[in-house]
């Protein structure tokens, strides 16, 4: 705090001195800034070149200005604020660009790497997102793109001081990882979420060459087994590791190497192991690292069942780890051992049971002690009864995700509106929910909208397509309508079940803050799409599949596609002509169409029906790396 005060004291001296020179400003900008509604009078004052002043010789006002600005702008971390600041005038644009150390790129195709390196010269941290979310569900052919290669090549030259790379849904090769490891000597943080294209050999290079590495997090990524003992590739001696997550790596590891690594990593706080780590091995790790705050427990199943005293005291190990606040893993849970986690339950803020087939009776004794839980993920095997238990105890719950044990349309659904309603009544501070079920009622959804006003994320997936309220037989319009009307902070919405155009009229009208909307098998006509595109003023990401929306609906959004991150429409009723119209009208928007096969299928190229439309704004025009099956209109 004092540091900030010091600099601001220094800064205000500069500012005072500057303002004294010419307290009244004339025009603000000298060169053309993009339109800005945020120019205040102090901004104008600062930007003004003093003219009337005579006696004192100040340093060049531009230098003072830029010094001042640099000092001020270093406190701005929010990218929205920085984007606004950069629009004030050219001078501000320049200074902001020089002081932006963390760059976020929500769509890797919205600009070229060259543009990034030209504008921002001192980047230390890069967040890049590639494929749109529906790619996770096999709706996008392999080899569509989102390669990390051009980005690592460009940043390797431009930012040798780069410390952090965080990628989501990108295609990353082992070569890319090798180049990263070799190019950035101070590299500290690699986080790969939902990525693919690399294997354990790439990870080995990173482990070996990034000597300052603090974070190596592989989350929900596909990592091929190159049969490399990557854990042994960490250099000898003490490491800087603070977080190591490899729960998604589907290959055995050398446990000895892991144990030795943990022993020489005194700063390690987060360790998420994969399912090839047995309960006995977990025990040894916990004994070596009682300072852990976050633990991914691996299989949670013993290799050998020893009797009585020979068996390690698992509960004691948990008791010794006094700082654990986050537990996950349980990939192959042997139920008898679950109570071992009881000693840490009272301190838990995050618990992920979503890979464990846990019944209500297994859950209840555990959750009863979890008063501080804020994030809870589970399978629907916990049933409505389990959710009631959560509602009874977890008053601090902010985020709930319930995944289906049997992810098919026709499976038995053990959870329903009963569980949803219970949660809404017990967990009033709920902010985010993802709920998979087979049946739901408008009543339960409405109850949640009324009981949980803090909701920012509401994602309900009724797995049977077009399913109505199972009690009244009516569409789910009223329930989702209540959500958008009552949850005034809602920024993300995913809808399902039987929905008419009316539901979308509610969404368009009341979804004032919605940035992301996911639609599947819903709506009756283009009107639904129009309601959304003509409403929802903050909409950035729109993903729709299998809904009866066509060219008319698509056209209704022409006025806003430049201001959105992307729009995805698959298995709707779009024609090439309709898509082409958008492409011609909006030169700053890239319009891609492709089919679901990645074969070189002539039918999809010449036919009029569009299987998938993916459009996004771009500063640098259509990409050059599009595969054959993608047509850019």
């Amino acid at each position, binding site marked *: 705090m004092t540091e900030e005060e010091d600099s601001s004291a220094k800064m205000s001296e500069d500012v005072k001195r500057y303002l004294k020179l010419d307290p009244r400003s004339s025009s603000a900008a000298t060169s053309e800034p993009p339109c800005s509604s945020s120019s205040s009078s102090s901004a104008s004052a600062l930007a003004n070149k003093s003219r009337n002043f005579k006696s004192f010789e100040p340093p060049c006002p531009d230098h003072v200005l830029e010094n001042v600005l640099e000092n001020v702008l270093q406190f701005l971390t929010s990218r929205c604020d920085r984007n606004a600041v950069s629009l004030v005038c050219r001078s501000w644009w320049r200074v902001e660009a020089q002081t932006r150390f963390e760059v976020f790129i929500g769509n890797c195709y919205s600009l070229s790497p060259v543009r990034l390196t030209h504008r921002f010269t001192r980047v230390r941290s890069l967040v890049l997102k590639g494929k749109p979310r529906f790619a*996770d569900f*096999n709706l996008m052919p392999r080899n569509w793109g989102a390669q990390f290669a051009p980005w690592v090549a460009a940043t390797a030259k431009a930012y040798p001081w780069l410390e952090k790379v965080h990628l989501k849904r990108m295609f990353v090769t082992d070569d890319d990882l090798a180049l990263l490891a070799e190019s950035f000597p101070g590299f500290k943080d690699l986080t790969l979420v939902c990525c693919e294209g690399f294997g354990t050999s790439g990870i080995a290079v990173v482990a070996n060459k990034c000597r300052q590495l603090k974070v190596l997090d592989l989350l*929900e990524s596909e990592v091929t*087994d190159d049969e490399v003992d990557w854990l042994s590739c960490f250099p000898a001696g003490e490491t800087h590791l603070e977080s190591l997550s490899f729960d998604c790596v589907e290959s055995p590891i050398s446990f000895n190497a892991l144990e030795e690594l943990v022993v020489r990593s005194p700063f390690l706080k987060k360790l998420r192991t994969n399912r090839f780590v047995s309960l006995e091995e977990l025990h040894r790790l916990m004994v070596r690292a009682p300072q852990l705050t976050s633990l991914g427990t691996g299989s949670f199943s013993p290799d050998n069942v020893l009797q009585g005293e020979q068996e390690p005291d698992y509960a004691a190990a948990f008791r010794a780890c006094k700082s654990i606040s986050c537990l996950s893993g349980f990939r192959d849970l042997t139920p008898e051992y679950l109570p071992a986690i009881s000693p840490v339950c009272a301190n838990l803020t995050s618990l992920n049971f979503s*890979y464990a087939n846990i019944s209500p009776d297994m859950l209840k004794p555990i959750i009863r002690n979890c008063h501080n839980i804020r994030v809870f993920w589970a399978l629907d095997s916990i049933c409505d009864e389990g959710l009631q238990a959560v509602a009874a105890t977890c008053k601090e719950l902010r985020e709930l995700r319930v995944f289906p*044990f049997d992810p098919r*349309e*026709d499976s038995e659904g053990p959870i329903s509106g009963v569980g949803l309603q219970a949660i809404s009544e017990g967990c009033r501070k709920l902010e985010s929910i993802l709920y998979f079920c087979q049946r739901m009622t408008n009543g339960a959804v409405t109850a949640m909208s009324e009981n949980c006003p803090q909701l920012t994320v509401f994602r309900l997936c009724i797995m049977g397509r077009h399913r109505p309220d199972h009690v009244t037989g009516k569409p789910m319009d009223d329930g989702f309508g209540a959500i958008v009307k009552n949850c005034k902070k809602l920024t993300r919405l995913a809808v399902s079940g039987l929905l008419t155009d009316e539901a979308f009229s509610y969404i368009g009208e009341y979804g004032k803050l919605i940035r992301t909307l996911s639609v*599947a098998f819903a709506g009756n006509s283009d009107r639904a799409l129009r309601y959304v595109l003509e409403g929802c003023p903050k909409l950035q990401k729109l993903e729709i599949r299998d809904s009866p929306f066509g060219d008319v609906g698509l056209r209704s959004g022409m006025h806003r596609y430049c201001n959105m991150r992307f729009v995805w429409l698959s298995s709707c009723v779009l024609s090439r002509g309709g898509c082409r119209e958008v492409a011609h009208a909006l030169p700053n928007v890239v319009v891609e169409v492709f089919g679901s096969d990645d074969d070189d299928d002539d039918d999809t190229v010449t036919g009029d029906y569009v299987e998938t439309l993916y459009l996004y704004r771009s500063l640098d025009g259509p990409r050059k790396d599009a595969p054959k099956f993608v047509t850019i209109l």
Partner: protein
Amino acid sequence: MEKVGDYDELVNLKATELRLGLPGTEETVSCGKSNKRALPDDDTEKEIESTGKTETASPPKAQIVGWPPVRSYRRNSIQTKKNESEGQGNYVKVSMDGAPYLRKIDLTVYKKYPELMKSLENMFKFSVGEYFEREGYKGSDFVPTYEDKDGDWMLVGDVPWEMFVSSCKRLRIMKGSEVKGLGCGV
């Protein structure tokens, strides 16, 4: 005449057949057998391709790709557990030297070695040579090997089929020079 009679009999038999599954569905679930590969439905085939493994049952309604929206990673993790808990299927990983991706197959689908070999050949687009008891595989650069319960790497075909199925933990199709040590019989 006979034919019609037979048909009638068949129809009646179907009605009395015991099945697993929810009433009203036409699921044919048989322990250890997979029907999916035989399905002509394009969508389901796509699902196989994209998830890289077979499921043991499928309803007659076309499986919609990517629905419900559960990531394949999660689907596969839970699927393995389900199969193991229901005693269905014995999935093992198959890797081939030089191939970028691992695949998974259900050994219980096959009844003997030639079936397995054919499936592997199709999957990875290669051909294995001819098996000789003493000399191993001849006539190809590729040799199928497997890791057994004891962690030893063995040549596929050396032990009786049942023993193989119960002890095989994973398969690896080795290439070229690495193979020499295994090929010369035990």
